[in-house]
């Protein structure tokens, strides 16, 4: 059985068409980020869950179009999430096209699952960011939470856009490890 634990996000997406299980690892790494993103921006855990499902299915359907290098894979994923959120708000209903295309069944969850999603939404992003080096925390906050461009971040942090990307990428990798550690302990 192949282990994908040591494989980068970008490589996981690249491998998915040949090794569909690689996407499972990608999902596990970013499930909380996407659930939290939607829970903080929507009225209920139900809606956050539906949008999370749609986001991952859309990512799954378009992994071949992902081009690594320009941005970390998680930024690409959050880009899909943001687009879906805006589309859903504009239409007044949760987008479901990708799930329909892949014939995904309705997700059956219990109250316990919904409570956990609420908790993820309540978790303070600031608390997690405090555990990062200051330069990485500033870059991650600016990119992921404030949704600013790399050029803007570079200008504010007085570094090149390339360095800003690097800091975001390293910060996200550190956060991911922190989440894994917390779950393991």
């Amino acid at each position: 059985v192949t282990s994908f634990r040591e494989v980068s996000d970008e490589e996981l997406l690249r491998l998915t068409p040949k090794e569909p299980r690689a996407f499972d690892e990608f999902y596990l790494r970013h499930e909380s980020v996407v659930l939290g993103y939607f829970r903080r921006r929507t009225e209920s855990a139900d809606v956050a869950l539906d949008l999370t499902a749609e986001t991952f299915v859309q990512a799954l359907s378009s992994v071949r179009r992902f081009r690594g290098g320009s941005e970390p894979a998680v930024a690409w994923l959050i880009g899909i999430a943001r687009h879906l959120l805006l589309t859903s708000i504009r239409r007044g209903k949760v987008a479901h096209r990708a799930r329909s295309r892949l014939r995904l069944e309705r997700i059956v969850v219990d109250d316990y699952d919904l409570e956990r999603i609420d908790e993820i939404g309540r978790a303070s992003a600031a608390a997690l960011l405090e555990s990062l080096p200051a330069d990485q925390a500033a870059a991650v906050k600016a990119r992921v939470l404030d949704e600013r461009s790399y050029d803007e971040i570079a200008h504010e942090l007085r570094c090149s856009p390339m360095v800003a990307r690097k800091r975001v990428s390293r910060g996200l990798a550190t956060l991911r490890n922190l989440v894994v550690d917390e779950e393991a302990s």
Partner: protein
Amino acid sequence: VSQVPALRELLQEAAERRYGRSRWRVRLHRAVAPTLAIAASGAVLISVSVMASGAGSDGLERAAAPKPAYTARITRLPSSLSAMRVLGAKVLGGPEAQAAMADAGVSGKLETAWEVPGLSGHIFLLRRGDDWCLSAPDPYGGAPADRGVTCATDRAYDRHGVSLRVGNTFAAALPQGLPSPTLRLPDGAQRELDPSANGLVVIARVADGVAVLIRSSEGTVQTNRLRITPVNRYECADGRVLTPEIVVGDPCEPTPTDLRLRPSPPLRLDGRGG
């Protein structure tokens, strides 16, 4: 550990459905694996018997045999007109069309669905809002949902239809009343193309430098110049010569990869190919 195991499970199933090995590959694997296993056992037995018979009686351990290089020589081929085909098409009826559409995961209001012998999936003409969209399968894709789509506004569709190139396949859906399009070959020669039922033109394995000219009723011409990925000619160490369109690993390597190769059919420009 997943926060929502139910979603994780559904995604795993969806990933397998979307990208899992196709049935024929599984069947091929099942068919070939026992043969390979028997061949490998035989090779081991022969090696053991050779060693036991004293073939290596000089007392020195033999160096391991190098892995055979299956391909001896690769030459890039100029794109070949002989492989190009104009394909015929058949319009699908309601239930069949809807089933094909669902299978391909295509969205939009269906106008026409075509079955095109020689393609790995169906072609759809759809309405999305005010646009006309043409969806065609990717010849290099592994699933019906691997496809390309392009859209044209109402006005553009009325003038030149809607056309796209996916991999080395060209397709155009033309509204009624347009003059027949023209195929222009690299040497400048031109041939009229006869659209199939409901105005579909499909050319498979297009050659580099070919163009399809689509004329509007007012006489304006849309020129679709086609470029394709070059094809290599593989001369194998065992004497075979291959020109695969899709290269997976070393094409000269024996089964199972060379079972995927198909010979190129002769040139057909009569619109009834397949």
